[in-house]
């Protein structure tokens, strides 16, 4: 593939930082999701069924 653009200093860091942020935040969310109590999950999942 042709090289279409010169890599320029700090711009190349942004995707790496973004990816690192994404990965860390994602792991935290998965961990928190797995830790949710069963009764909370049951309550939440029944919310659409609560009314009319």
């Amino acid at each position, binding site marked *: *593939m*042709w*090289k*279409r*653009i*010169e890599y*320029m200093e700090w*711009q*190349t*860091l*942004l*995707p*790496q*930082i*973004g*990816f*690192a*942020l*994404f990965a*860390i*935040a*994602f792991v*935290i*969310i*998965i961990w*928190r*999701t*797995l*830790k*949710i109590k069963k009764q*909370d*999950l*049951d*309550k*939440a*999942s*029944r*919310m*659409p*069924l609560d*009314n*009319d």
Partner: protein
Amino acid sequence: MSENKLTIEYNDRIVRMFMMASIIWGFVGMLVGVLIASQLNYKFLNFNMEWLTFGRLRPLHTNAVIFAFVGNMMFAGVYHSTQRLVKARLASDFLSNLHFWGWQLIIVSAAITLPLGFTRGKEYAELIWPINIGVALMWVVFAINFFWTLGIRREKSLYVAIWFYIATIVTVTMLYVVNHLSLPTSLTHSYPIFGGVQDALVQWWYGHNAVAFFLTTPILGIMYYYVPKAAGRPVYSYRLSIVHFWSLVFIYIWAGPHHLLYTALPGWLQSLGMIFSLMLWAPSWGGMLNGLLTLRGAWHKLRTDPVLKFFAAGVTFYGMATFEGPLLSIKSVNALAHYTDWIIGHVHSGTLGWNGFMAAGMFYFLAPKLWKTKLYSVALANMHFWLGLVGILLYVAAMWVSGITQGLMLNSVDANGVLAYSNFLETVQSIKLPMLFRVFGGGLYLIGFAIMIYNLWKTIKSGTPTNGTFEVDANEPKEETMGLIGAIASPSFLYSAAIIAFPCVWLFADGIVGHLGGLLSIATCVAAVLHFKKSSASFEDWHEKFLKSSMPFTALVLVAAAIGGIVQIVPLVTIDRENVAEDRIQKVYTPLELAGRDIYISEGCYNCHSQMIRPFVAEVKRYGDYSRLGDSIYDHPYQWGSRRAGPDLARVGIKYGDEWHYTHMMNTGALSPGSTMPNYPWLAKKETNIAALPGKISALRTLGVPFTEKSDEEVIAEANAQAQRIVQNLKDKQIEVTKDKQIVALIAYLQQLGLTDNHQPDEVTAAAQ
């Protein structure tokens, strides 16, 4: 009402209004879709009328089905389900009504301006700037009404459907505003502030995520509310729904560049787009399985309940479309499929199957409840389902055949690099039959939709508009939430932020700063462990409260969605464009060429013609040298296109004489037998707006296009002189036309496509010296 009970009435009137608007506009939008699909078979259906050509009606079709059909359906679903999930009436009847009538006014304005040729020339972002402002205002009204309702809610927990609605509101705001930043030159015309490759990236960041956050996340919220409701059982896995939500919000926003594979977009962005598209497979299928498994134990109901039938098929199409999307994002598959009908088929499996069937299921569910009656005919609903399903399958299968045929024929070269099908029209002829099946499939779907309208109309006539009510405990204590500042000024948030930030410094910074980042990372982890050991419940409490606090939650969603856009767009808009362009750079347009370009955009030529030659042997042989980043660096808006119903035009300049273009535009069939391109006789009658050129050039100069400083009189004189030269060329070939006609300006534009200056980046020039 008992002593301590308070009865509150939901605002279901607004739900009924949005629902009926969705049905009416949906029919209109799909009818236009069938018409333009027919135009690709029978060009006489363009009727030689400028406001009925494919190029002008296709934006009307896409805008109508996205913003009018799905938009109104989404608002109906969001308003209906939100009131019930948060146990509160919509905060403001005035804002609800303003939202409804404002949105319909926008749709009517679009339906008038698009056929008249007033367009910004960017797909799904065609509406002119005054309408853009209207859309932004109405979206703000929607957001205020929604968040205000959350603010007065009685149910503090936010069900996952509400999360999806929040993501829709904040992300669409961000996408719409950035992609519609423009510099107006008149009431009906503007130039986007981004140009060339930057405009392309911003456009597909928006375009792809319009699919994600306008056509997907709100409908997923609707799925998570209405499928359990209709099945009478809770969602299969609430945990999975949370993972589904955050995965989509984080990943979707990065995937836009897969629309620009093998173009002049920088390679690292293409790779990023492809990788994140592949990652989307997992959450999308997780969501689909969650929806389908919610029906466990209720599958037998599908035999008799049309609502569940539509939902089950809709969710299945969500899975199919989100399988096909990542598949098409693989570069080698994309090389075959891009610019072909396969992509159009993929989009329609999502819109007709996922959006259309979820909408139908929701309408059949809501109508009897909102009018307190029974569905008029289950048999008619079943007939709608089967007609729609067969229609979609015929449509999609026809587009696979058509798209793969196009891809194979256009990319086919022999061992010596000679094109196997050198005439583009050979492919147009080869796909005639699948194009007919496409019309037939779309027609069946439309007939099914018409049956639904009749069925719902009879249902509504048999009932009475009724608003839902609910009782609440008047003395219910208020639960404490944290607010935005409370969410940030807590040990949990601060530790989390530090644990993200310091390792980034450690990883990416050099020298002493990097070491310091490492030390602080370890220190923060130790401090966090000690802190939470001391007060073990605090993080958990914070997280529980966080999920019940809509504003901090919204801020987090915005951050999550913004990351992907920032890392892609910021590097590209901050680079020195001209210095990183390769060996050539676009010639700045002459005034007449610029006028011609605006006519090209106004006629919607980009709906069928690309201006981006990919670096493949077949494309270079067919169209000319592959497109460079510098070729379109001054194009506001970019015109790379996304499909080829006709050939690429990136290097069509000086390939043919002026008289060829004139004759071709007046009667395409005369020079291209079998062409489906409409004739454009009005271009020889309508006058070019030469007087507007100085203002337009001034606007583009403001945006960074290096036009030479000239007085208004000089600009007009230059345009007239070039027009006179073209008129003389035509006269030499026995064609009489005056220099003020639009066709002359358009010829000027077409004749310069692909003409560039040799270019050396500053660094290379300096090194040579």
